[in-house]
C-alpha cells in the first residue's frame, strides 16, 4: 500500500512542481542582449559599431608587421620568418580576402538601424553612415585583392528549400565595385561629422580620403592595365577599360578639392624626428585622418616595439625583427634631388671610402631616411643602437664575432676587445640587424613600450594627409597638369626637409612612384601600388639581379633584400685608423629572388567558393 502511494506521489509531485510554460519560455536571458534592448540605447549600438570597426580589413599593419618583410622593403630577422626569403614565388592565394560574413553583419546592422525608432535621428543617421563607410571599405579591400566581387547589399537568408541558387550572385565587373565604393562615399560624406579631431571613427575627411584612394586605384588600373592585357577577364571582372581612366583621375581631384581641415604635421625642428613623430603624436595631430587607435592599460595595445626594438638594451630578450633593406635605404634621394647608390667605394672601385662617423655616409640624404630607418651610429631611447659588424684591417680582412657584442683579439692589442656590435649585424643570428638597419617608423620611444607587460599605444595610421597630397599629385600628373603635381609634391617634400623644390618639368612617372615609396614605406601601400601600376611582375621578376644602380627608376628589378654593414678600421699607424667603411652584403638566408607571377595580380578564389557558387569565374593566369 505504502509503495503504491509512493509511486503515485512522485509523478504528482512533478506535475505540481513544473512551472508555468509561458513564464519559463519567456524568461529574459541574462547573458545576451536582444535586438530591442540594443537598438534602444545609443551606447549599446556604439559597442556593436565598435566591433564592426575592430574588424576593418588591412593586410600589413602595426600588428601584422611581419608581412612587411614579404617584399624587397625589409629582411625578416627571425628564425621562423626566414622562409619569406626562401620561397621561389608567392602563392596565388596570398593576400586574398573573401569576407562575406563581415559584409552580412554590416548589412544586418544597416537593416536594423533603418528600423530603429528609439534613437535620436542624428545618432541613427551617423551610425548608418558609419556602417556604409565600413561596407565601402570592405568592398574596396575586396576589389583591390580579388578584382570584381558580388555586390551584396542586404543580409541574405536561406529558406531551407534545398535550392540555394537564388543566393548565388555572379561577380560584378571590377570597375562596378570601384564605382560602388565611390558613389557610396559620395552619398555619406556629408552625413558624417566634418571634424578633423575625430581620428578613429569615420569622418567626412576619411570618406574623401578613401574615395581619392579608390578612384586613383581604379584610374591607374584602367591606364596601366593596358600594358598587361593577359591580366583581364572577358567579362571585365578583372580589368578596367582604359577609356575610364581620365574620369577616375578627375574624381580624385574633385574629392581632393573638397578636403579641408587637415595639414601636414610640422612641430619638431629636426626633420627626421618630425617625420617619425607624425605617427607618435596623438595630440590633435593635423595630418592624421583615420586610424586604428590603441590605449595603454586598456587591453588594446600592441607589441610592435617589443618585436622591433634594437636588440641592444632591448627591454626584453628580443627585438629587431624587421630589418629595412639597403634597396629601400638607397632609394632615399640626395638633398640635391638626385638619385644614386650610397657612396661606399671609390670611383674606380679600388678601395673603400673612409668616413669619420658611420652617420656621415647618410649625411646628405633625404631626412625621411633616418625618420624611417634606424641607421648605424644613431640612438634609440637615448642609447646607442650598437650596429657595427667588426673591424676592417685592410686588404679585405675583417675581424668579427658570432654573438651579440662578442670579444676577439685584434692585432697589436693584448687583451680581447669587443669586435661586433651588441645589435649585430651578424649573419644568420635572429634579432640582429642583418641588413645593418632597424626600423624606426612606429617604434615607440616611451619607456616600457618594449616590455611585454606594458606594450605600446602607437596608433595605426590608415589615412594621412601626406598620402592625400601624393594622390592629388599623381592624378594631376596623369591629367597632364604637371605644375599642380609639382606643387602638391613639393608640399610633402618641403615638410620632409628637402630644400630644392621640383619644377613641373621634373615630374614624371618615376618621380611619382619614388615619392610614394619613400614617404609611405611600411604603411601598407607598396603591394597595392605595384599592382595597380602593373609594375609588380617587372620589379619582382624572379631573377637574381644585383642591387640596382638607378634607385630612382621605377622599373628597376629589386628581388632580394640587400644589406650594408659598417666596419671600424683598425690600422694603428695609418691615416684611416678609427674611421668607418661600409660593405654591401646579401644576408645568407636570402636564397631565392622574389617572383611576382601574373596570377598574383588578383588572388585566387578557392575551389570551395567555386563549388558553392558556380557563377563565380576564376581569376586569370592561375
Amino acid at each position, binding site marked *: 500500500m505504502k509503495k503504491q502511494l509512493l509511486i503515485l506521489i512522485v509523478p504528482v509531485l512533478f506535475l505540481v512542481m513544473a512551472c508555468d510554460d509561458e513564464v519559463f519560455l519567456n524568461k529574459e536571458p541574462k547573458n545576451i542582449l536582444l535586438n530591442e534592448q540594443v537598438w534602444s540605447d545609443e551606447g549599446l549600438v556604439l559597442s556593436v559599431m565598435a566591433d564592426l570597426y575592430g574588424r576593418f580589413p588591412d593586410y600589413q599593419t602595426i600588428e601584422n608587421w611581419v608581412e612587411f618583410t614579404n617584399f624587397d622593403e625589409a629582411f625578416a630577422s627571425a628564425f621562423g620568418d626566414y622562409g619569406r626569403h626562401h620561397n*621561389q614565388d608567392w602563392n596565388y592565394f596570398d593576400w586574398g580576402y573573401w569576407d562575406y560574413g563581415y559584409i552580412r553583419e554590416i548589412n544586418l546592422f544597416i537593416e536594423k538601424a533603418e528600423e530603429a525608432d528609439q534613437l535620436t535621428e542624428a545618432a541613427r543617421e551617423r551610425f548608418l553612415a558609419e556602417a556604409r563607410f565600413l561596407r565601402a571599405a570592405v568592398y574596396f579591400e575586396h576589389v583591390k585583392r580579388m578584382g570584381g566581387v558580388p555586390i551584396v547589399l542586404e543580409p541574405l537568408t536561406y529558406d531551407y528549400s534545398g535550392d540555394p541558387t537564388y543566393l548565388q550572385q555572379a561577380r560584378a565587373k571590377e570597375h562596378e565595385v570601384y564605382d560602388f565604393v565611390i558613389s557610396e562615399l559620395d552619398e555619406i560624406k556629408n552625413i558624417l561629422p566634418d571634424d578633423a579631431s575625430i581620428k578613429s571613427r569615420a569622418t567626412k575627411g576619411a570618406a574623401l580620403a578613401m574615395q581619392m584612394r579608390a578612384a586613383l586605384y581604379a584610374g591607374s588600373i584602367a591606364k596601366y592595365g593596358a600594358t598587361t*592585357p*593577359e591580366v583581364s577577364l572577358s567579362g571585365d571582372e578583372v580589368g578596367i577599360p582604359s577609356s575610364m581612366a581620365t574620369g577616375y583621375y578627375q574624381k580624385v581631384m574633385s574629392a581632393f578639392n573638397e578636403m579641408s581641415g587637415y595639414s601636414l604635421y610640422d612641430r619638431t625642428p629636426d626633420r627626421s624626428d618630425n617625420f617619425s613623430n607624425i605617427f607618435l603624436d596623438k595630440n590633435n595631430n593635423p595630418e592624421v585622418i583615420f586610424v586604428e587607435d590603441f590605449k595603454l592599460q586598456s587591453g588594446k595595445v600592441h607589441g610592435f616595439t617589443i618585436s622591433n626594438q634594437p636588440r641592444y638594451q632591448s627591454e626584453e630578450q628580443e627585438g629587431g625583427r624587421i630589418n629595412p633593406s639597403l634597396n629601400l635605404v638607397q632609394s632615399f634621394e640626395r638633398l640635391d634631388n638626385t638619385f644614386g647608390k650610397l657612396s661606399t667605394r671609390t670611383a674606380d672601385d679600388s678601395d673603400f671610402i673612409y668616413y669619420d662617423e658611420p652617420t656621415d655616409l647618410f649625411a646628405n640624404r633625404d631626412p625621411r631616411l633616418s625618420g624611417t630607418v634606424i641607421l648605424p651610429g644613431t640612438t634609440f631611447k637615448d642609447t646607442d643602437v650598437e650596429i657595427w659588424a667588426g673591424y676592417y684591417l685592410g686588404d679585405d680582412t675583417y675581424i668579427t664575432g658570432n654573438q651579440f657584442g662578442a670579444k676577439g683579439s685584434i692585432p697589436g692589442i693584448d687583451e680581447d676587445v669587443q669586435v661586433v656590435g651588441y645589435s649585430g649585424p651578424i649573419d644568420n643570428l635572429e634579432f640582429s640587424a642583418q641588413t645593418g638597419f632597424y626600423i624606426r617608423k612606429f617604434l615607440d620611444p616611451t619607456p616600457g613600450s618594449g616590455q611585454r607587460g606594458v606594450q605600446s599605444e602607437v596608433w595605426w595610421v590608415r589615412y594621412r594627409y601626406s598620402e592625400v597630397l601624393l594622390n592629388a599629385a599623381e592624378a594631376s600628373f596623369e591629367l597632364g597638369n604637371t605644375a599642380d603635381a609639382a606643387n602638391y609634391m613639393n608640399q610633402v617634400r618641403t615638410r620632409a626637409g628637402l630644400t630644392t623644390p621640383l619644377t613641373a618639368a621634373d615630374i614624371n612617372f618615376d618621380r611619382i612612384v619614388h615619392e610614394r615609396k619613400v614617404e609611405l614605406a611600411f604603411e601598407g601601400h607598396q603591394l597595392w601600388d605595384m599592382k595597380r601600376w602593373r609594375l609588380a611582375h617587372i620589379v619582382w*621578376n*624572379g*631573377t*637574381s639581379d644585383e642591387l640596382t644602380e638607378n634607385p630612382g627608376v621605377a622599373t628597376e628589378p629589386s628581388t632580394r633584400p640587400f644589406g650594408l654593414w659598417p666596419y671600424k678600421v683598425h690600422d694603428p699607424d695609418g691615416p684611416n685608423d678609427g674611421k668607418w667603411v661600409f660593405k654591401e652584403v646579401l644576408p645568407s638566408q636570402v636564397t*631565392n*629572388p622574389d*617572383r611576382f*607571377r*601574373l*596570377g598574383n595580380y588578383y588572388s585566387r578564389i578557392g*575551389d*570551395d567558393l567555386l*563549388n558553392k557558387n558556380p557563377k563565380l569565374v576564376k581569376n*586569370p*593566369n*592561375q
Partner: protein
Amino acid sequence: MNKILNKLSMFAVALLLLTGCALDNYEEPGSFLKGRIVYQGEPIGVEYNQVSFQLWEPGWELSKSIDVTVSQDGEFSALLFDAQYKLIIPSHQGPFMSIENSGTNSDTIIVDLNGSTEMDIEVLPFYVFNSADMSVSGTTVNMSASLNKVVTGVDERNIDRVNLYISKTHFVSGNTSVSSAEIGGGDITDIGNITLSTEIPDLTPSQSYVYARVGVKISGVEDMLFSPVQKLEF
C-alpha cells in the same frame, strides 16, 4: 590486487588490438600517368616548377583539380587512382598553345587511366629550338642557337628577349642563374642564328662545371621556352 590490474591491462591491450583498424581504409592510388609535353615528338623545355596542367575527375559532388607540374625537360609524372580524367592545359600555361583534340572537339583530352600509362601530350609551341650549342673557352660560355617560328598568322608572337643562363646546379633559369647574357627581341636579326656569351663568375664552393641553357621570352606569354640543359666542364 596486482593480479586484477594485470588482467585489466592485458584486457585493455587486447581491446586496443582488436578494435584498431587497418592503417588506412582506402586503397592508395596505384597508377602512374607519365609522359612528356612534346611537339613532333620532341619534348619542350620549360622552367622548373612553373608549368602545370590540370586533371579533373567528373562525377563527384565537389570538384577540385589535380595539378600536375611539368619538369624542366618537359616531363611529367602523377600517381593517380584508376578513373577517367579530363586533362586540360590552362590557356596561360607554358610557351605553347593547346591543340584541339579530335575526340572532344576542344582542348580537353580524355585520359582513361587503367593501370600505369605513358602518354605524350602534343602541343603547339610558338617557337622551337632547332639547335642550341654551347661551349666553354677559358671561363667564357659561348652559345649559338637557332630558333624556328612554329605558330604564324593570327596567333603569332614576337620574341621579347633571349637569355643565356648559367647555374651551379641542374636547375637552370633566371631564378637560379649565377651569370646570364641577354639579347633583346629587336636586336635579333636572324632567329636562325642567335649568339650570346657570358663569363662564369667565381663560384663558392668552387666547382669545375656549370649547367647552362637558353631561354626565350615570347611576348604576351609568361612562361619562357628553354633549350635542353647542358653540363659544361671548364
